[in-house]
């Protein structure tokens, strides 16, 4: 779906933010992790066409990103920003969600249908006529996800979706990611919540100092302790606990941990 070759980028000459990135992103849900300043946000902005690469090429569903504007790419790739206040300006939740679909020339009826479907997906159907600024931060973040989902792009990137979410909010986002995966969308995220990554993403890419340090199945990535340390990334809490208890295999979720211990007790 996305092919990145020899990608380099710098905001200022002489200080590269990204260099020599080669990646192929397929249908697997993918988390991009790494410490602050590793180049994650710059990378997704380049995928979305919000920045133009100094060197290298990006193809998103055969669109050459360098030759396409971010607005044109909106039909193919959606990016949910971290801070919901950066985008909201309409008077009602429904209008806010319909803004994107109407921008990409979807007809009004279709835009409304898509918007209502997306609003139902994020569980805000009871707040259609509410001013978005009257929602809680958690609901605002869900609204922003709906605003992108309604545009029906093939690829959806979520920037720190779990920030400001309580347990129920995280569960809701889990369901949204699953629903999108079921619709054959490529779901990507930039995130610092490793527990969430372990539970929900099939593939994990670790960025460090503008380069890809690790790339592979999430389990395989979280098994490489030394490399993660180099990127200043901690494995999920449950993975660390299992390791401290001497469990050899890499455990990613609480369910796996319980299952593994029950098996061990039975033996």
């Amino acid at each position, binding site marked *: 779906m996305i092919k990145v070759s020899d990608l380099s980028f710098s905001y200022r000459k002489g200080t590269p933010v990204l260099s020599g990135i080669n990646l192929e992103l397929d249908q697997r849900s993918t988390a991009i992790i790494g410490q602050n300043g590793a180049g994650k946000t710059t990378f997704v*902005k380049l995928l*979305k066409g*919000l920045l133009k690469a100094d060197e290298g090429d990006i193809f998103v569903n055969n669109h050459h990103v360098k030759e396409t*504007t*971010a*607005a044109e790419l*909106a*039909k193919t790739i*959606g*990016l949910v*920003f971290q*801070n919901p*206040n*950066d*985008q*909201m*300006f309409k008077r009602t939740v429904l209008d806010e969600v319909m*803004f*994107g679909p109407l*921008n*990409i020339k979807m007809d009004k009826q279709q835009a409304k249908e898509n918007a209502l479907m997306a609003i139902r997906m994020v569980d805000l159907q009871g707040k259609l006529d509410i001013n978005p*600024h009257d929602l809680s931060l958690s609901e605002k973040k869900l609204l922003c996800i709906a*605003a*992108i989902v309604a*545009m029906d792009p093939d690829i959806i990137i979520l920037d720190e979706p779990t920030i400001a979410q309580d347990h129920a909010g995280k569960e809701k986002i889990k369901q949204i990611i699953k629903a999108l995966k079921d619709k054959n969308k490529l779901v990507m995220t930039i995130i610092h919540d490793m527990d969430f990554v372990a539970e929900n993403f099939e593939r994990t890419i670790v960025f460090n100092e503008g380069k890809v340090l690790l790339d592979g199945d999430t389990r395989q990535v979280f098994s490489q302790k030394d490399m993660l340390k180099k990127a200043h990334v901690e494995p999920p809490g449950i993975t660390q606990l299992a390791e401290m208890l001497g469990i050899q295999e890499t455990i990613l979720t609480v369910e796996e941990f319980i299952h593994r211990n029950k098996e061990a007790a039975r033996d």
Partner: protein
Amino acid sequence: MKSISLYVDKESFIHDFDPITKLLYILFALFLPLILLSFTVSFISVGVSIVLLMAAGVIRKTIPVFSFVFLVLITVVIIQGLFRPENETILFQIGPLAMYKEGLLYALTITLRVMNIVSAFLILVLTTKPSDLVETLVRKGMSPRIGYVIVSVFQIIPEMMASMSTITDAQRARGMETEGKLSVRMKAFLPLLGPVILGALINTKERALALEVRGFNSHVPKTYLYEEKTHALSKWVQAILLLLLVGAGVWRIFG
């Protein structure tokens, strides 16, 4: 984040002087030519300011400011040289247009005064941190509220510019074109401006609360974060500047 302050962080004896001395120098450079009404004094005053800017190592930073000022002053020279009502003596002619001595002399007076004010202000602006200036004024009795308003402008404007860039990206990500024809840009105005204004209002409220919880409005005497900046020669320089001004006044009245 880009700063809107013109301050140049360097080490020089001009940087070492306190803001009050620099403010006093502005008053001196402003009033001396007005009191003495002499081209020579104006020239000397501009010359001294330029030498001080060179000594501070900030003369290159003045080029864009002086270029803009010259652009405005050229129009003054042309208009006064050609059309001043008191014009009588033709100095030279370019085709049908005659340049008059009286108008040009008047334009020169204005030019010198403007140069004088701008160069004196540049000494203050380029060699003094805004926060140092405000803190000094608060020490001298200015309201801390007014001080905070001045300092926060230097923080809020770059923040708003950064936030504008993020908002533009967020709306482009939703398929909104922000570049191209005027009509396209006009259409993008509300989606961009709405979040900027609302964001600014939310930030203002949060800033006010953050200040309040940190005791901004407490009535006890405050401890200042930085040591008061003083230079061994500050008092002498201030006294000399004041004496010169008073002397010029006396000269003008009785001379």
